[in-house]
């Protein structure tokens, strides 16, 4: 039997907030054996990170472990003094964090940072520390460690920085590694590589790993056992295979269902969990999930004990799912939103004071049309946005005189069209130019060359007042619901401001518009007098959406609209976006790194790589039959919440990292990372070729054979792009 490394028993961590004590972690127990990876999963605020920090005793000042034991190799860490604890940190237990940019010291070389634990714990000499540092950097896959060792963090890409972060954690060869959302800030392609690295290192060093994440896909592929947390409590714990095959807790089930799947029926509503996690200082009595639970009964006012439901499968619920056939997560996969075998809950679904109880169901009105009807309607719709040979380059200056020494080719010759009422999804890794493209479409940035037309007019030709007046036709929805609303303006003023700026209606009409918008996005009218900080992230994103709709725009450009939200909230917003599109005849340009989200939301998808549009087509088509190896790689890299699929994946589908946009590779820009690349790819830029109706891709060695006629007629969703790209003579 493997050695037990970590044994956490009945851990309770409290935070002292103003007048109340709040238990962020309440009676959590877990064990990890040598070489084992245990996942801790839940939404933000569920206490998963606090559990990790409690083990390390790195809690903020107001936080303390108030009871329980943390046994590391049989030794209890809780009673240790701070000085003794310092001996443990970085030596026996290491921790890596989410954001590799802010988690590394910007003013220290990476070599010094990796060597630091050695200096602290072993008092290593300079020479010895350097040798071990180079070894560790090599171990985590940093190319040419000797040249890199004197670099500063900002000189490295995000992926390399996270490798350095891992190196600092591993330098002293700890027995336990706590990885707190280690890949959340990274692109999917890089995420797969970093997770592969962690897997490899765990095996090589036979470390125990506690993987904290919100991503069920990551959990499915990488962990041996999983614990699900909700509002500070452990609600379910099982082996990974068991948890996904026979989910018992309604929260875990709902969490799994609300993740948009690549196989999702895009015309069906995404199942979502109503409301949001409770405030820890005002917990509901009994089961903490009961107010949001569809199976809740009067019994749930008592706290359910964590009991063994099957061998090694713990669950804290009076009404575990999966007991009756037809319910449970596994069944829900094949039929999302399928009614469960359990009768209507006697308790009404929970609502928060700000969300009328009808809100979630209102999102669904009117009944969504089926996919075929929608496609037909779209094919007949006129083109609203035309993007024609769009180029954006930013100058790079250098030297003492700040001469122009080159340019960042952010967007290179991109053309496409969006029909009225269509949702166009733009996907790619960070740095591929998708946000720049979005800003140009929103007329916030002037292209270097090429044009963007909205309803036939080139908005950026206009100046001053004319341009400002036409801006009402274009609105934006932002990623960060915290940063994109003025914290010193009341929600009413935020929503009314566009109307005031554009001089639409009188005072009374403006307030009426605001009130009806609040109804529409499912917020109480009381919201007008509140400030943004009084709302949760999901509610703020609703406000952001309402703000975008105030002027009744024709096009909404949404840049990563749900990537800052928890999955249960994300699905609420996605449903809302779809409902509003139907009610207002909106056209969306949605920019996202998340293919599953785009696949659910979009009619057409454009895949961008390093400034180029490499593939474009109907959403289903792109997923079912990707032609470009990059698209295929991206799809492969998405972690799927299914252990059998995830664990079968051999290795990261797209290797390496995005090259510099200042000197993009010659010919096909993807060739440096492409498994199929040959000589011609370096010499000639591949033209866009047709692969079926409305489906084009730029690749010399596509995964499908190109259709005979490039001009695909009668396409349900026609793209403007049909002519070959320049350079393909």
């Amino acid at each position, binding site marked *: 039997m493997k050695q037990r490394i970590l044994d956490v028993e009945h851990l309770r961590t409290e935070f002292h907030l103003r007048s109340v004590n709040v238990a962020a972690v309440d009676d959590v127990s877990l064990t990890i054996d040598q070489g084992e990876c245990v996942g801790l999963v839940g939404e933000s605020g569920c206490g998963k990170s606090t559990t990790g920090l409690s083990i*390390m005793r*790195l809690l903020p000042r107001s936080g303390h472990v108030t009871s329980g034991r943390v046994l590391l190799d049989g030794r209890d860490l809780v009673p240790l003094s701070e000085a003794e604890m*310092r*001996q*443990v*940190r*970085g*030596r026996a237990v*290491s*921790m890596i*964090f989410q*954001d590799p940019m*802010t*988690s*590394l*010291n*910007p*003013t*220290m070389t990476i070599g010094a940072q990796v060597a*630091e*634990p050695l200096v*602290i*714990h072993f008092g290593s000499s300079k020479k010895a520390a350097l040798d071990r540092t180079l070894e560790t950097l090599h171990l985590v896959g940093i190319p040419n460690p000797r040249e890199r060792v004197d670099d*500063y963090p*900002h*000189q490295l890409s995000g992926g390399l920085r996270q490798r350095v*972060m891992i190196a*600092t*954690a591993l330098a002293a060869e700890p027995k336990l590694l706590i990885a707190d959302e280690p890949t959340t800030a990274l692109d999917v392609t890089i995420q797969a590589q970093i997770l592969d690295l962690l897997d490899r290192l765990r095996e090589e060093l036979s470390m125990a790993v506690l993987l904290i994440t919100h991503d069920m896909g990551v959990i499915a592929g990488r962990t041996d056992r999983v614990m699900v947390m909700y509002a500070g409590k452990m609600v379910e714990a099982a082996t990974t295979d068991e948890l996904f095959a026979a989910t018992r807790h309604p929260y875990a089930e709902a969490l799994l269902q609300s993740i948009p799947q690549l196989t999702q029926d895009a015309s069906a509503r995404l199942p979502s969990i109503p409301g949001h996690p409770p405030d820890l200082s005002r917990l509901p009595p009994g089961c903490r999930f009961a107010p949001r639970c569809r199976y809740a009964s009067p019994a749930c006012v008592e706290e359910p004990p964590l009991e063994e439901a099957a061998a090694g499968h713990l669950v804290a619920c009076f009404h575990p799912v999966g007991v009756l056939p037809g319910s449970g997560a596994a069944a829900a996969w094949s039929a999302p939103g399928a009614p469960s075998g359990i009768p209507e809950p006697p308790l009404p679904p929970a609502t928060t004071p700000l969300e009328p109880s009808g809100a979630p169901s209102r999102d669904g009105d009117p009944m969504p049309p089926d996919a075929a009807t929608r496609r037909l309607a779209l094919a007949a719709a006129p083109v609203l946005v035309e993007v024609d040979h769009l180029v954006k380059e930013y100058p790079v200056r*250098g*030297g*003492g*005189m*700040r001469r122009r020494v080159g340019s960042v080719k952010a967007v290179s010759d991109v053309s496409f069209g969006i029909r009225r009422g269509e949702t166009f999804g733009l996907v790619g890794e960070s740095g591929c130019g998708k946000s720049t493209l979005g800003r140009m479409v929103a007329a916030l940035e002037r292209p270097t060359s090429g044009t963007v037309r909205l309803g036939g007019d080139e908005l950026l030709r206009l100046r001053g007042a004319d341009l400002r007046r036409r801006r009402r036709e274009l609105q934006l929805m932002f990623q960060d619901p915290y940063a994109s609303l003025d914290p010193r303006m009341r929600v009413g003023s935020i929503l009314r401001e566009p109307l005031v700026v554009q001089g639409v209606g009188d005072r009374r009409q403006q307030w009426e518009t605001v009130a009806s918008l609040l109804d529409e996005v499912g917020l109480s009218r009381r919201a007008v007098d509140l400030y943004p900080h009084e709302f949760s992230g999901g509610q703020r994103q609703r406000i952001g959406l309402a703000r975008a709709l105030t002027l009744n725009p024709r096009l909404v450009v949404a840049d990563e609209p749900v990537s800052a939200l928890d999955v249960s909230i994300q699905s609420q917003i996605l449903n809302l976006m779809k409902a509003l599109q139907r009610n207002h005849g909106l056209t969306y340009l949605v920019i996202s790194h998340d293919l599953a989200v785009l696949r659910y939301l979009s009619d057409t998808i454009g895949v961008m790589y390093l400034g180029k549009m490499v593939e474009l087509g109907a959403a289903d088509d792109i997923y079912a039959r990707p032609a470009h190896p990059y698209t295929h790689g991206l799809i492969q890299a998405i972690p799927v919440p299914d252990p059998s699929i995830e664990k079968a994946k051999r290795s990261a589908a797209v290797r390496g990292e995005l090259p510099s946009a200042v000197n993009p590779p010659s010919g096909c820009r993807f060739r440096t990372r492409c498994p199929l690349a040959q000589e011609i790819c370096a010499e000639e830029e591949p033209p866009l070729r047709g692969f079926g109706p409305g489906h084009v891709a730029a690749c010399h060695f596509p995964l499908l054979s190109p259709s005979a006629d490039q001009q695909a007629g009668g396409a349900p969703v026609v793209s403007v792009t049909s002519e070959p790209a320049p350079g393909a003579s």
Partner: protein
Amino acid sequence: MTGFVVRRFGQAVVVMIIVSIVIFGILHALPGGLVRAQLGPRATAFSVHELTIQEGLNKPIVVQYGIWAWHALQGRLGFSYKLNESVGALLSQYLPRDLLLVGISLLLAIAIAVPLGLWQGYRRNRPDDHALSALMLVFYSMPSFLLGVILIVVLNIWVDVLPSTATNFGTGLGTDISVLALPVFALCLGNVSYFSRYMRSSTVDNLLSDHVRTALAKGASPRRLLLRHVLRNSLTSTVTLIGLTLPYVLSGSLIIEALFNYPGMGLLFWNAAQDRDFPVLLGVVLVVTVATVVGNLLADLGYAALDPRIRYK
């Protein structure tokens, strides 16, 4: 780094040229012109004419600026008829004393404020931090001349340990130190409160940052945390502040010098202002401006030296 230094230096030169044009303009806007300003209202037409020719004031304005700028570069900043000495000579006599006073008080302020701010940041919101903050607030809200007067009352009149005037400056190292002590303290305490306040808040920010948490996760001791991870990052923002404070320290010294009778540029300026000795006044203004520009340049270079993100761009 070289590119950055060259660029920053170029900017400083451009700023200096603009400033010199402004000062030249002020010189010409003097009532009755430069000649009358020097000779006084009762000078004869002949002597006015003679000085006009002598100073080249009949030439086109651009040429005049060229001549003036060329002379200024060589340290020839005109002649003080009141003191019967060239402005350049006066400045070369008084300026070093200022550099001594201001330099010592600034260095002392930094030497006290940086560790103080670091400590307060580390001990934030604990009783010792609150006590120190309160004390610093007292210094901060007190104008330097009042501080000077209080210092004189306490350390000279009540307990006679230090001289209250600096008239016998330059008579030996021992006296110089005792003579400088009070003006240096009067000038420095306000800055200590200012710098340490800033240092405290950037220390707090840094202590709460992710990279400090990483250092803690490695097992770093508080000492290592403060000296290796927080100090340098907190200094980057404080250094900019120090550079920006330089002109205020210089102008503060004008009052302190008058108060302590310290024979520095402040005293020179004070007397010149009372005598309407314009060439001297403008000479001092020019020196203060140069100091400001140089101070900013040094601050930026210091920033670049501390923060690699500025260096490698």
